[in-house]
């Protein structure tokens, strides 16, 4: 049966990287295929990641020496704000979503996401929202208030430009995209699992995607409200966060961090899931403490909602509140530590293959331990009073978001690349990428711990020669250039892999255990020729050596195809179900490509522009056209669904 699944179907589809045939544009613009959407997510987030990285290099270049005048101070503010906003909302988050989009349906044996059109809508709204945010640079100034946009600095009296408007409207669009995507993931994972794929057999990456999606649907409404109130302040003359009108700027911080703290887990959990997939494969042994990893992810997600005010110790919450929030923050160290021990336990005694994905996964663990420990120090109010708004915090956030999330995501990209494109990334270049990135990363961000402890404030655009900041700023900047080179190596690697002649990548080149490796590389449009039936947590491993005989170099899969209802009845004693499944497998038809999600997303962006523009003519033009696009596309969409 295994062989059946593995047989490559004669398929017309070219590798997604071959963009030469006929006119591919339509196939991508109108696609509802989760694999294509996933690839578009990854490509777009990599592009935004490069932009954000370029902005980071600008920031570091400005700080290379004291009293540097490389950047105008105002531009500096815009650049560091957009660097953070881009990396968080347009880089790390969508890259996790993209990997999840590609991998999760395959992992659970589904043919697509639960709502393929909504999936396309989420992507296009994210993509247009990202462009909208970046257009601010050429349309009157980018946001310049830092990524958490503390009121009242964002209010009109203090910030009359359009920067904050771009920021709040852009984030509103991205929030809608995220919530729609998260609902999609939740329903997909709850409903579309292959027969036998119980929660305790879910791959861990799918587990964390589910938890992340719950975090998104419950955390994003908070920032939605914060942005709405800010929008009313800026555009309608209210004063929710303006003390002169009776408002309270502190409310912004609470609303923002009620979202903002779950947000950091939204960014780190997928990377943790990727690492939990990569480690067992390259250690050739099952993950150590599967259920501990799954449940500690749940615990992290839950605790993540109880600790938001640890970002606000210096606002004067009072001892009781500080103590409570500090306690919660320390508590989060427990499930996180559990996971780290589980990962190390997975490596321990494993038969390690130090391929690039494993290198990145190990880099993740090492860096994340450092970031986690600096996080524990910051959870203590007295320490936080000293370190807040210094480079110590900058070091911490980069150790968890870059050293953690980005390293984890690169592990995932190297790991799933052959599945996505049917080609490997070059191993030598991959190793060079890893080591340069590892060295560059630590060179850039480790000195920031010292800079922060010495008192260098974050977001300051220059410093004086005699303050003791010169050496480590210089080192950090040089390290950041190394980082830039390492990312370039990855880009070159990606292009080379696309240019190389097509190779025949086996279904399961890494000898991995999860379902996505049981189909072809890249998978056909319908993913699986027959719905797989899952009997264990490691469907492609468990049967590897059933009789204790050797010679299992090419592992037999333990994936049943449900195309044989009779077998199924015998195996499960649930004839009805099996027959139903078998019938359904062939009844499934993928939705047709549709352009309406793109149009709807575009209409929403036009409405955002309408809110942004002051001249009435522009405002009305954009509003009306946005509404027309919206109405037409919703109508067409509904017609398609109900047909």
């Amino acid at each position: 049966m295994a062989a059946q699944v593995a047989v490559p179907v004669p398929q017309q589809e070219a590798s997604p990287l071959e963009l030469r045939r006929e006119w591919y544009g339509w196939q991508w613009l109108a696609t509802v295929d989760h694999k294509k959407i996933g690839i578009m997510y990854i490509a777009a987030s990599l592009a935004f990641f490069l932009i954000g990285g370029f902005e980071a290099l600008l920031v570091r270049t400005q700080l290379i020496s004291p009293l540097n005048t490389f950047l105008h101070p105002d531009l500096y503010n815009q650049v560091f704000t957009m660097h953070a906003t881009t990396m968080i909302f347009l880089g790390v988050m969508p890259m996790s979503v993209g990997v999840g989009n590609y991998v999760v349906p395959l992992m659970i044996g589904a043919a697509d996401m639960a709502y393929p059109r909504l999936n396309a809508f989420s992507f296009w709204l994210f993509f247009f929202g990202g462009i909208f945010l970046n257009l601010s640079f050429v349309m009157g100034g980018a946001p310049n208030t830092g990524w958490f946009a503390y009121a009242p600095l964002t209010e009109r009296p203090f910030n009359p430009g359009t920067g904050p408007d771009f920021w709040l409207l852009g984030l509103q669009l991205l929030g809608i995209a995220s919530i729609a995507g998260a609902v999609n993931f939740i329903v997909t994972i709850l409903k579309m699992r292959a027969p036998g794929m119980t929660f305790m057999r879910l791959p861990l990456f799918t587990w964390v995607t589910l938890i992340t999606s719950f975090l998104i649907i419950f955390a994003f409404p908070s920032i939605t409200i914060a942005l709405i109130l800010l929008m009313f302040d800026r555009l309608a003359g209210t004063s929710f966060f303006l003390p002169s009108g009776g408002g309270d700027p502190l409310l912004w911080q609470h609303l923002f961090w009620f979202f903002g703290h779950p947000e950091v887990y939204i960014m780190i959990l997928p990377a943790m899931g990727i690492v939990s997939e990569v480690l067992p494969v390259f250690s050739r042994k099952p993950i150590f403490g599967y259920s501990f990893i799954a449940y500690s992810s749940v615990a992290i997600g839950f605790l993540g909602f109880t600790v938001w005010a640890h970002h606000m110790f210096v606002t004067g919450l009072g001892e009781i509140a500080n103590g409570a929030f500090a306690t919660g923050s320390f508590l989060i160290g427990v499930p996180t530590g559990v996971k780290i021990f589980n990962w190390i336990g997975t490596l321990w005694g494993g038969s390690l293959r130090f391929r690039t994905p494993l290198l990145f996964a190990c880099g993740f663990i090492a860096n994340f331990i450092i970031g986690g420990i600096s996080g524990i120090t910051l959870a203590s109010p007295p320490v936080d009073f000293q370190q807040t708004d210094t480079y110590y915090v900058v070091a911490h956030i980069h150790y968890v978001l870059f050293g953690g999330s980005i390293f984890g995501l690169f592990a995932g990209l190297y790991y799933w690349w052959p599945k996505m494109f049917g080609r490997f990334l070059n191993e030598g270049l991959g190793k060079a990428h890893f080591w340069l990135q590892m060295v560059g990363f630590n060179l850039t961000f480790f000195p920031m711990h010292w800079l922060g402890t010495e008192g260098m404030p974050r977001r300051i655009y220059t410093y004086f020669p005699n303050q003791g900041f010169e050496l480590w700023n210089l080192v950090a900047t040089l390290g950041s250039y190394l980082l830039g080179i390492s990312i370039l190596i990855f880009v070159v690697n990606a292009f080379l892999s696309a240019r190389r002649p097509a190779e025949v990548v086996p279904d399961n080149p890494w000898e991995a255990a999860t379902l996505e490796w049981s189909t072809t590389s890249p998978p056909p449009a319908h993913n699986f020729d027959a719905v797989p039936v899952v009997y264990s947590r490691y469907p492609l491993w468990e049967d590897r050596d059933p009789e204790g005989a050797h010679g299992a170099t090419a592992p037999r899969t333990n994936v049943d195809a449900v195309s044989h209802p009779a077998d199924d009845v015998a195996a499960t004693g649930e004839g009805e179900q099996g027959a139903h499944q078998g019938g359904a497998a062939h009844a499934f038809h993928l939705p047709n490509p549709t352009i309406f999600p793109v149009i709807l997303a575009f209409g929403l962006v036009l409405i955002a522009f309408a809110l942004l523009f002051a001249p009435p003519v522009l405002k009305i033009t954009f509003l009306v056209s946005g509404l027309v696009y919206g109405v037409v596309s919703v109508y067409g969409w509904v017609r398609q669904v109900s047909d």
Partner: protein
Amino acid sequence: MERPHPAQPVPHGASGVPGTHAAPSPEAGHPGAGRYVLVFIVLFIITAAEVAVTYFPEIPQLPALMTMAVLKFGLIAAFYMHLRFDSRVFSAFLMLGLFLAVGMLLSFLALFTAHYREPYEPVVEQTQPGTGTPAVGTSAVSGATGGTTGGVATPMAGR
């Protein structure tokens, strides 16, 4: 809390077919029209009682009103939204959202009232940038107006 009922064993998902399965028979879960009208009458009475309570200050308003609101809430969710007859998974979504919303409301109330904070000083429109606090705001505010040389001087001004 994000635990999507891991204790419930085997939901073999529906094989990736959104439309084809399910459609449970209508009578299976949903009560009849008579029950709906009955629920409405109860809701009507509670609402009238809510308004009536506000005319009698001697009744402890907060507990009485909150009890009745929770009752109405529960009735609508249980009967009109069918949660009483539907899967507990649906209830779980509502309860999670409610739990967070109520938790947020209560903790905000506590955070904003339990600890005395100095009132904000009246803000003069468009304060002179760059002379404020040296931490977060400085660079951003100063950047808004400061020229190159003015901007360089900023950190010193804060000091």
